[in-house]
């Protein structure tokens, strides 16, 4: 095992972590913090040993930061080099030990993130249907509407805060891996905020069902999502009952209800076994029967989990060769969770998706097999599966290097980080200042990944061909131009942070400084020469009025070209 300098690690982490500053604009890097006096650090939970690699040290660090974080900020590569890449990874695998004060301070601006579902239902009610009808008929002005149902008290506020929080975390958090795997699992267990009562449940879903288990046990994650009202509502399980069930009370009183297959199918196809994982239509029906009664207590008033005993199908169920005896009650669903999370198809399916996320669109089968074995050997320990993948020779291989295309969320967050942009918080409730987080989320939406609003339960795809097309590339270029020209509201970009001490009268110097900051000096020679050729453009190199020579470089445009370059679309 590698020797490691504990003291050095501590200091470096403190520097990387930054410090709380609640009112000042939030840069991706805080002011130099006071040294944190602390007890001696306990050893890391997981020791990481890196494999040999043909990549240079700089490439290894950049590649790892590109894959395990939302991209390096200026200076990050050097900081990780000092700390040691292995130690940086070990820290990221234990997010709870990384101080993240600035994010916590910034998230105070979004109160809905931590409110319980029943409180949200009451505090952010749906506008009265009659009010909406009157508005649509044109008999009420927008002003009157705003007075009757203020936008900051309407339910879409919850989704807006959640979107803003996602970007705030992606850009600012020191717990980069945690943010990224939380996003991964939300996408895996996708729900759409626009479906009915999900809007009041989605923040709680991410906070209590996804995030705490993102690097934990897969079974716990699966169970938490299965019992969460957001999932129960989104995939309709909350209303699925035993055949011909007739409630004696409630809104469906006296009406014949019955089975709904939606969740039963997707939990096997999308959450666990995979579509070729070996289940049949009979299994779908049996799983649906097992989950009958897993429901929600009044979705639009209370919105919490409730097992409705009378709706449950008490018969025997046969699922994938297992027999669930009669009268299993609420535990039937838990048994299904156990069967599915322990199934070898699940190990393979989850290993494949994680390897696709971290390594390449078509991950090497040998790596998938090793990751699946880790899944089986550790009882579905997600962190250990991730470790198997990111410490593999395949991860640090030249084939994987820059082999993936960034998703819209990744291109937006990594662009802001690359130029060390500052996020401004939202204005007071009711103000027209949405804040940098929400403005960036809207950019992500424009690029084709509306956050928390993916209608089909597959979530967003994780392969290049989904994100590369003519319109998408133009949108990415336009985002780069807008960002560097400070046209994204609530986001302040001071390019002197990226350009540093380069002499702006010497365009070549400025270009090289930008390539260092944004692409860690790893631009291809073709890209560098194409960009150098642009320096002859009088619009990039602004001539003085009497045309005697360059006076200033259009750093904004040049930076936009670098952010919009093919290399920066890759990770």
């Amino acid at each position, binding site marked *: 095992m590698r020797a490691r300098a504990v003291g050095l690690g501590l200091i470096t982490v403190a520097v990387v972590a930054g410090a709380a500053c609640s009112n000042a604009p939030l840069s991706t890097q805080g002011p130099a913090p006071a040294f944190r006096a602390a007890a001696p650090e306990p050893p890391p939970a997981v020791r990481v040993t890196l494999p040999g690699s043909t990549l240079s040290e700089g490439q290894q660090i950049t590649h790892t930061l590109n894959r395990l974080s939302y991209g390096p900020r200026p200076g990050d590569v050097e900081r990780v080099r000092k700390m040691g890449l292995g130690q940086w990874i070990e820290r990221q695998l234990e997010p709870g030990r990384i101080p993240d004060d600035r994010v916590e301070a910034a998230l105070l601006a979004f109160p809905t993130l931590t409110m319980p579902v029943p409180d949200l239902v009451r505090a952010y009610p749906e506008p009265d249907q009659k009010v909406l009808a009157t508005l649509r008929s044109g008999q009420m002005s927008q002003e009157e509407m705003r007075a009757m149902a203020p936008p900051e008290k309407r339910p879409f506020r919850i989704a807006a805060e959640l979107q803003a929080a996602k970007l705030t975390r992606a850009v600012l958090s020191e717990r980069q891996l945690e943010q990224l795997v939380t996003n991964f699992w939300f996408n895996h267990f996708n729900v759409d905020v626009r479906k009915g009562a999900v809007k009041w449940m989605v923040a709680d879903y991410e906070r209590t069902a996804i995030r705490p288990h993102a690097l934990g046990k897969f079974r716990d994650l699966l169970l938490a999502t299965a019992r969460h009202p957001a999932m129960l509502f989104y995939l*309709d399980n909350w*209303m*699925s*009952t035993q*055949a011909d*069930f007739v409630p004696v009370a409630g809104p469906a009183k006296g009406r014949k*209800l*019955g*089975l*709904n*297959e*939606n969740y039963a*199918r997707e939990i096997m*196809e999308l959450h666990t076994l995979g*579509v070729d994982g070996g289940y049949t*239509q009979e299994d*779908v029906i049996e799983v649906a029967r097992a989950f009958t009664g897993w429901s929600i207590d009044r979705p639009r008033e209370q919105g919490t989990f409730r097992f409705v005993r009378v709706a449950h199908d008490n018969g025997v169920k046969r699922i994938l060769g297992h027999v669930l005896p009669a009268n299993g009650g609420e535990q039937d669903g838990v048994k299904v969770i156990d069967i599915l999370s322990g199934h070898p198809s699940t190990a393979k399916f989850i290993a494949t998706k994680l390897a696709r996320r971290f390594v390449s669109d078509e991950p090497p089968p040998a790596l998938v097999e090793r990751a699946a074995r880790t899944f089986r050997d550790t009882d579905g320990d997600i962190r250990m599966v991730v470790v198997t993948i990111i410490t593999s020779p395949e991860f640090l291989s030249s084939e994987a290097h820059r082999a993936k*295309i960034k998703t819209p969320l990744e291109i937006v967050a990594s662009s802001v980080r690359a130029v060390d942009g500052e996020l401004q918080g939202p204005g007071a409730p009711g103000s027209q200042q949405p804040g940098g987080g929400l403005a960036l989320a809207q950019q992500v939406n*424009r690029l*084709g*990944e509306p956050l928390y609003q993916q*209608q*089909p339960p597959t979530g967003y795809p994780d392969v*290049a*061909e*989904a*994100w*590369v*097309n*003519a*319109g*998408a*590339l*133009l*949108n990415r*270029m*336009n985002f780069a*131009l*807008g960002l560097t*020209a400070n*046209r994204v509201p609530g986001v302040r970009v001071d390019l002197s942070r990226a350009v540093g001490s380069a002499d702006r009268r010497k365009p070549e110097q400025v270009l090289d400084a930008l390539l260092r900051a944004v692409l860690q000096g790893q631009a291809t020679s*073709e*890209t560098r020469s*194409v*960009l150098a*050729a*642009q320096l002859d*453009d*009088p*619009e*990039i190199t*602004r001539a003085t009025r009497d045309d005697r020579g360059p006076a200033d470089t*259009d750093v904004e*445009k040049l930076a*936009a*070209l670098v952010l*919009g370059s*093919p290399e920066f*679309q*890759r990770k």
Partner: protein
Amino acid sequence: MDCACTRGSFMKAGALALLGMGSVPRFLVRTAYAQGTAARPKILIAVFQRGAVDGLSMVVPHGDPSYYASRSSIAVARPTAGSAEATVDLDGFFGLHPAMVSLKPAWDDRHLAIVHACGSPDTTRSHFDAQDYMETGTPGVKSTQDGWLSRGLQAVRATPTSPFRAVAMGSQLPRALRGEVGAVAMGTVADFDVKQDMGRMGAGIVNARRGFESLYEQDVKDILHGTGRETFDAVKMLKSADPQRFAPENGALYPRGRLGESLKQIAQLIKADVGLEVAFADMGGWDTHAYQGNEKGQLALRLTEFSQSLAALYRDLGDRMADVVILTMSEFGRTVRENGNRGTDHGHATAMLVLGGPVKGGRMAGRWPGLAREQLYEGRDLAVTTDFRDLFAEVAVRHLGVTATSSLFPGFPMNPAKYPGVLV
């Protein structure tokens, strides 16, 4: 699919035009439909209803007694003279959902044909597999990389004529259009450009576009560079053609919503004569597991938007519909019996619409398998009597003019005798 390098020589034409310092790109001259020097191309507009539309509510088999027996709360009422809340009768046995009354004029004009009980022979009830199978045209085969529409265009003509030969409205290129024939995906026509702002010194047009174009013009063979080159050819062409100048005609009123927006812009591209041959649009919201409604309700709202969008396009294009076929599709249908929540679960066959000037319309095509229990697929779903590939093949062959049919649906024996007969 990672190599876009073979995507066509119009990129070279674009590069030459660039050397000519921003004059009209050559392909624009070459495809001078506007001057009437070339025949207008045949155009196919494919509309995908993602999520599996309930074909039995969309095109109601009101003459089948099992229909009403299977659906106690969600069946659409039998046609009633003068009622706007009942099935719109078509032929005494089938009728349109009342929310789709806007398509009745096209039926009466004999420009709308319907293929019922159409679908895939594959047994999957997974939305995502079934959509892929329908778009690649290879049910049961997951390794197919390209889409049937791309292969169809390739078979019509291998030499590209316009960067807008194939266009998908939306933020992603659908699998149906992936492949050798370059296709453009765009959110909106208006956004399809590099937004150039004025420089700080106000010194004329700032050319960020040229910078990006040079970056993506490098001789590197990968998905980004191939797409990048196509993109800039398309941007330049669109600038000259200026499709946004075309307002909807003939009183066409597109409903609000993404599909209406998409079809409106497809109409603009057609009128601007940019060389469009295949357009693709899609609409979600069909996965009605709960409370889908009958004459009114959730599904009725979706059907209203769907059919009004199609009807607006039909009206807007007017005489141009002589060269246009609109083909709708969905990955599968839904259970015949309603489920425990007044909705329907994943089923098998559904209904597909074919709309346009060349359509042998005003008639139902295909064979009705019946809804009695013993007639159902796996005892629960509408059986498939028309393989979707026979319908798609008929459109590709008789409308787009595909002659080399073996590549269109690999492994599928093409047999014109099995075409549903929807085209003249």
